[in-house]
């Protein structure tokens, strides 16, 4: 059960990292045309670049977090899921809010 909890903890951390990464990269690529161009040149399309990089962040983040995870409890897992849920809401609002702001200026 400990090993399973560590894997759950790792995937939750990987999810947190990927949600933050997607929000940051989305806003950064709109603010910096150079960065958006780099994504287009490197991956063929900025959205494909974000998709591939997000997948790498998720896989690496989950794997490394699982490997370095300390012993945890069910209660702690529940708290981390709550934190991930709040983070998803916050990053969704940040992305939506940014595009509303960008369209209004």
């Amino acid at each position, binding site marked *: *059960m400990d090993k*399973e*909890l560590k*894997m*759950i903890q790792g*995937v*939750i951390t*990987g*999810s947190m990292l*990927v*949600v933050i990464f*997607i929000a940051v990269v*989305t806003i950064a690529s709109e603010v910096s045309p150079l960065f958006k161009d780099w994504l287009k040149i490197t991956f*063929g*399309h900025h*959205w*494909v670049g*974000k*998709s591939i990089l*997000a997948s790498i962040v*998720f896989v690496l983040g989950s794997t490394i977090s699982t490997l370095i995870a300390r012993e945890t409890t*069910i*209660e702690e*897992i*529940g*708290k981390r*899921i*709550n934190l*991930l*849920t709040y983070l*998803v*809401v916050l*990053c*969704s609002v940040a*992305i*939506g809010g940014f*595009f*509303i702001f*960008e*369209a209004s200026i």
Partner: protein
Amino acid sequence: MSDTLIFYLVLHIILGSAGIIFLTAYLLSLSKKEPDSKSLKSSSFLAVLSFIGSWIFGGLYYTSYYGKVVKPIILKGQYSWVHTILMETKEHLFLFLPFLTIALFVITALGKKGLEKNENLKKSVLRFAFIIVGLGITAALAGYMISGAVTK
């Protein structure tokens, strides 16, 4: 639009809708007093497959057709905000869905004992699944509005 692109778009919509349906089934199943762990595991797994499929086929349509043909039409019309706000938000929020659904599947598959016994964990997972369904429905509604803006 070629038959292949129509096929990609239709698969994107069908698989995205299927993902929402599987997650709704998951939510209903987890809401029961004694949830069936096999049903939770299969519905979350099918949601993962659906969202990954929708991601791939939506991406193929978006990168090969939407930006070149559909986007300019919307931007020239009176509903340009549908692209600048709704499409831009949808295409990025959609990226959350496959990863969050994978996380939900892992939590369900590896933490089934905790889900059966710990009421707090069950509530946390319910809230998490509810937010994923909400994101999926938001993306679907934005998709309907984007389609509507093309013809007007």
